[in-house]
């Protein structure tokens, strides 16, 4: 913990080292890599949302000149293994992941891969793939929670049973993969004691992360069995271990080189192409490149769940929440694994509620298998809770922030999932929200204002780092975490802080899986926190070695050398012992023992939870239903902002994505399960011209688990916007919207109805 530590570099805003390459197009992303003899892969995808695969005949494709390999589900072993981050069991179901790569028996969604071709050009590969004869037996699709739960619903997986706490009458097989429950106090008694009870049912649509760079990779299966994979990923070690587990290979034969990454937000954690490219390369004996189109990304990568949430909250007349109950249903897509459990854990996390019950259901439907997306599960849950609280505040005549402040959790309160909170910043966030000029600013005609709040855990997990010192006094920091949000420059700042050398003299590098110790994914808001801990420890290792070098120069014991303000300082002064800077020590690096490399690894606990709030002003054209966000402010406890510009960027990015989710984004399907808007023209994400400048307020409540107090940033800012925007719409129109998105047709229809 930093305590009263005065920082020299932490909290400054240096230019990122990789910035120029990125804005000039020089940076190499997944699709930029090439090799001699490179083949191009193409994936044939199911045109049906739900169909049994009767047969696949690839002979016509094999015969096309230029085709070097064809693979189907038969080339992907039916694994039974589970893969966990950092070892152990659990986490990734490799059987489902393998079946998602290339379907074995059934196509479970439109776009499900059924075969892949490698050829000398992308055009030949595509033309050959179109000659593969797949015989399907079409089955009725199940597209929504309600369809999946209906009596006599089509069943996606013949052996699926409900894990966790199934309801007593749960059928087998079923589309309900998991049910879990959190309970505290006596919820019936709590509602009986309530003066006001508000209950609504909400829906949020399946949405995509919308990263700009589509999935892309190159794989080379060498004659010696050594495998190289270049890919755009949030987790190169996860790619390595998933490829090995799915294909039955030894992970020691696989090296994964991460490219620059053009966004991920959780969507580039799973593998979609890499094992297929390896399988094709193994057959073809040549390297294979695979690149998704935008259409592929929408139809066949992992968006986040659509959800249905019923939320009921009871309060006393003085605003004290006394009871809450919620039922959360999350679409998992084609295989189990929605963020239903985390949604349940987050739904009530900001508030002290003595009596509650939350149940959550993980439900398979004929849509692409979901992947993580910023604070998975929390936005849909918060949409429900924060909308109900807004309605309660209206009925009580309370300021909505005061209602939240009255019930806000503080250090020592128990989270609904069990443990007690350590130091947290919800109260500070809410007070900053209330005191912000935005909250009191006058509104224009047809405008409304809303506020909302959100919670996320922030991950820990394993990270490794090395810091090398050069003889010119510059340093290099190496980690295994692809840089999505400016983490390289943050790591440089940390090394600068520990060693006292300028940030521009500390280069940060993302290494391949052979060149750095195991590191979990870039995600979960964990890199600046957990990998940052490893970086700080590695820099401190360098610092301790520099003290030893100074001791050697002065011919004293190392214990008599301190480190102060970037210098080795003798504790027993003498005429020939003046403090030595890093630069001076580095100049003598050869004479005092050779290169200096610091190293460290951590397995960090989850960071202290993060809370955020936001204020939104929306203007509604009541003739067209079109709405426009005219002002937006996001407030967040980040623990400590190492590089405030990138912290603000994360907060703004999360807010923008949440606004998109609230206003326009949704997967639109035809009744037979075919996606109707698989492109950015029809899948409407907000662009810069759609949004005002998003104001940010950084709150710093120190996280005692991190040396600088870092808490993590990237996820929680997407949690409040869904409700914040809907509450603003309620203020502007008088209508409580319970279904997202608040697109013009929906708003217009509601305005006509009321």
């Amino acid at each position, binding site marked *: 913990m930093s305590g009263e530590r005065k920082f020299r570099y932490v909290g400054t805003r240096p230019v990122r080292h990789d910035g120029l390459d990125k804005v000039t197009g020089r940076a190499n992303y997944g699709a930029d890599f090439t090799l001699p003899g490179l083949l191009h892969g193409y994936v044939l995808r199911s045109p049906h949302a739900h169909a049994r695969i009767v047969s696949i005949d690839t002979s016509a494709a094999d015969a096309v000149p230029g085709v070097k390999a064809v693979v189907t589900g038969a080339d992907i072993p039916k694994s039974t293994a589970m893969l966990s981050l950092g*070892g*152990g069991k659990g*986490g990734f179901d490799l059987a489902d992941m393998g079946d998602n790569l290339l379907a074995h028996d059934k196509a479970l969604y439109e776009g499900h891969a059924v075969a892949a071709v490698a050829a000398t050009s992308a055009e030949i590969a595509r033309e050959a793939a179109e000659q593969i004869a797949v015989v399907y037996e079409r089955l009725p699709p199940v597209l929504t929670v309600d369809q999946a739960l209906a009596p006599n619903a089509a069943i996606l997986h013949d052996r699926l049973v409900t894990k966790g706490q199934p309801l007593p009458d749960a059928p087998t097989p079923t589309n309900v993969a998991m049910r879990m429950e*959190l309970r505290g106090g006596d919820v019936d008694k709590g509602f009986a004691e309530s003066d006001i009870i508000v209950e609504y049912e909400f829906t949020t649509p399946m949405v995509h992360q919308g990263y700009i760079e589509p999935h892309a990779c190159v794989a080379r299966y060498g004659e010696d069995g050594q495998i190289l994979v270049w890919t755009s990923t949030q987790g190169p070690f996860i790619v390595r271990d998933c490829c090995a587990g799915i294909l039955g290979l030894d992970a020691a034969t696989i090296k994964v080189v991460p490219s620059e990454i053009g966004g991920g937000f*959780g969507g580039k954690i799973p593998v979609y192409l890499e094992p297929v490219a390896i399988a094709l390369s193994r057959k073809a004996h040549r390297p294979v490149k695979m690149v998704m189109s935008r259409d592929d990304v929408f139809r066949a990568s992992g968006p986040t769940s659509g959800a249905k949430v019923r939320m009921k909250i009871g309060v006393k007349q003085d605003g004290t929440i006394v009871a809450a109950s919620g039922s959360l249903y999350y679409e998992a897509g084609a295989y189990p694994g929605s963020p239903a459990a985390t949604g349940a854990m987050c739904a009530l996390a900001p508030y002290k509620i003595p009596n509650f019950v939350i149940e959550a259901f993980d439900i398979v439907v004929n849509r692409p298998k979901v992947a993580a997306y*910023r604070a998975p599960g929390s936005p849909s849950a918060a949409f429900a809770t924060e909308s109900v609280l807004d309605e309660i505040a209206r009925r009580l005549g309370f300021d909505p922030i005061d209602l939240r402040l009255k019930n806000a959790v503080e250090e020592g309160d128990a989270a609904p999932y*069990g443990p007690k909170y350590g130091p947290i910043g919800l109260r500070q966030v809410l007070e900053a929200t209330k005191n912000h000029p935005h909250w009191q600013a006058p509104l224009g005609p047809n405008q409304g204002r809303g506020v909302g709040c959100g919670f996320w855990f922030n991950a820990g997990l394993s990270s490794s780092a090395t810091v090398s010192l050069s003889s010119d006094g510059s340093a290099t920091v190496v980690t295994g975490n692809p840089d999505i949000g400016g983490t390289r420059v943050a790591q440089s700042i940390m090394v600068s802080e520990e060693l006292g050398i300028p940030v521009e003299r500390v280069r940060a590098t993302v290494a391949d899986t052979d060149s750095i110790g195991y590191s979990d994914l870039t995600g979960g808001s964990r890199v600046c926190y957990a990998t940052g801990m490893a970086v700080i420890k590695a820099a401190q290792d360098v610092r301790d070695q520099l003290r030893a070098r100074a001791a050697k120069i002065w011919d004293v014991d190392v214990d008599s050398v301190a480190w102060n303000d970037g210098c080795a300082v003798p504790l027993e002064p003498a005429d020939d012992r003046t403090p030595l800077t890093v630069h001076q020590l580095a100049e003598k690096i050869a004479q005092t023992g050779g290169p200096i490399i610091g190293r460290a690894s951590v*397995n960090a606990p989850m960071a202290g939870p993060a809370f955020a709030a936001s204020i939104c002003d929306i203007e509604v054209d009541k003739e067209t239903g079109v709405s426009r966000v005219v002002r937006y402010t996001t407030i967040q406890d980040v623990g400590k902002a190492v590089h405030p510009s990138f912290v603000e960027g994360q907060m703004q990015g999360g807010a923008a994505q949440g606004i998109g989710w609230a206003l326009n984004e949704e997967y639109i399907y035809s009744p037979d399960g075919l996606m109707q808007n698989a492109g950015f023209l029809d899948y409407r994400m907000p662009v810069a011209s759609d949004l005002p400048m998003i104001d940010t307020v950084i709150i710093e409540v120190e996280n005692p688990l991190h040396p600088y107090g870092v808490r993590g940033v990237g996820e929680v800012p997407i949690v409040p916007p869904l409700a914040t925007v809907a509450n603003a719409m309620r203020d502007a129109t008088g209508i409580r919207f319970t279904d997202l998105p608040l697109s013009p047709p929906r708003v217009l229809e509601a305005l006509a109805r009321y």
Partner: protein
Amino acid sequence: MATIYFLSGLKQYTGGVESLTVDAPRVRELMQAVTERFPALSEPLQMMSIAVDGAIHRHPDYLKLSAGSEVHLVPRISGG
């Protein structure tokens, strides 16, 4: 002595027991005692993280417990 608390969803494996106080030096020994007492917990435990005094860990087997430590089993969380 550390006390481990079982979420409502885990009480089906503990016969309704809500908490257990165990004299265990580390998380490993605590979990051994718990699974000996409640063998049915062994499988669901594979998918749980363990919170010790508020900090949620993925693999805390050798983490030392202090007198009065509070331990909770928390469903694993994946982030984006």
